[in-house]
């Protein structure tokens, strides 16, 4: 089986979060991530996918297989055109929430992944990129 190098999944309704999660699980497993690493990636995808649905009403998850310095990895990008995050540092703080959640979405996802970048501005939307490298 040859793996496609990249792809995207739209997140519009609640069930799409589960579809994105299942896709990420299959991609991570095919890229050779172990059971626990796959669980970390899938959990982060679930948190970030839910943010897209909950705060922006929808968006897209793009994924890309990475190969750099003979290391393999997976990059996930969650893009929406929602209200955006006014204060990214504040949103990254433990316990911060505006959506009635536990406020662990962004910092929790960061802990589960190796790298995280957030690009956001009020009114233009939010892009959260996370990466995980194979050990």
């Amino acid at each position, binding site marked *: 089986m040859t793996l496609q190098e990249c792809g995207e999944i739209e997140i519009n309704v609640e069930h799409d979060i589960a579809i994105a999660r*299942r896709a990420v699980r299959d991609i991570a497993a095919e890229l050779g991530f172990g059971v626990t690493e796959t669980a970390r990636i899938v959990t982060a995808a679930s948190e970030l996918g839910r943010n897209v649905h909950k705060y922006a009403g929808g968006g897209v998850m793009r994924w890309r297989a990475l190969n750099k310095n003979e290391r393999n990895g997976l990059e996930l990008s969650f893009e929406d055109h929602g209200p955006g995050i006014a204060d990214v540092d504040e949103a990254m703080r433990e316990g911060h929430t505006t959506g009635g959640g536990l406020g662990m979405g962004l910092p929790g996802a960061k802990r589960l992944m190796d790298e995280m970048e957030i690009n956001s501005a009020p009114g233009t939307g939010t892009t959260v990129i996370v990466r995980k490298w194979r050990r």
Partner: protein
Amino acid sequence: MHSPKRPEGIAETITVTKVREVLLVTMPSDPDDPTICALQEKTLEAMDQHTVTGLVLDLTRVEILDSYFARTVAETAQMVELMGGETIIAGMRPAVAITATELGVSLGRTRTALNVDRALDMVGRARHPKPRRRA
């Protein structure tokens, strides 16, 4: 591949079975948000319909526990307690326990067991002698 691909569209539902004095609630491997949301209602309705001393929530098949899922489980356990029962969470996989902890989720004071067998032994123990709600 670490887990076989499931065909999309097959409904993954919660099963509720009465085993002697206990309700055994089994979660599917990757429930979507509406399915997780149904956990509370299904569980509390079953509590109301049957005379049971407690509830064993079987997570043996569950592959990830994100913040929404964990919050729903903790809240359900709290509601079951208000109705006079006890919840024991059983069979959490190692990868799920590691990931949930790193994400930062907590199940509150809910008791846990390695598997369903042990959980069934625990229900009703170390509690009031007859925690039945109705004669």
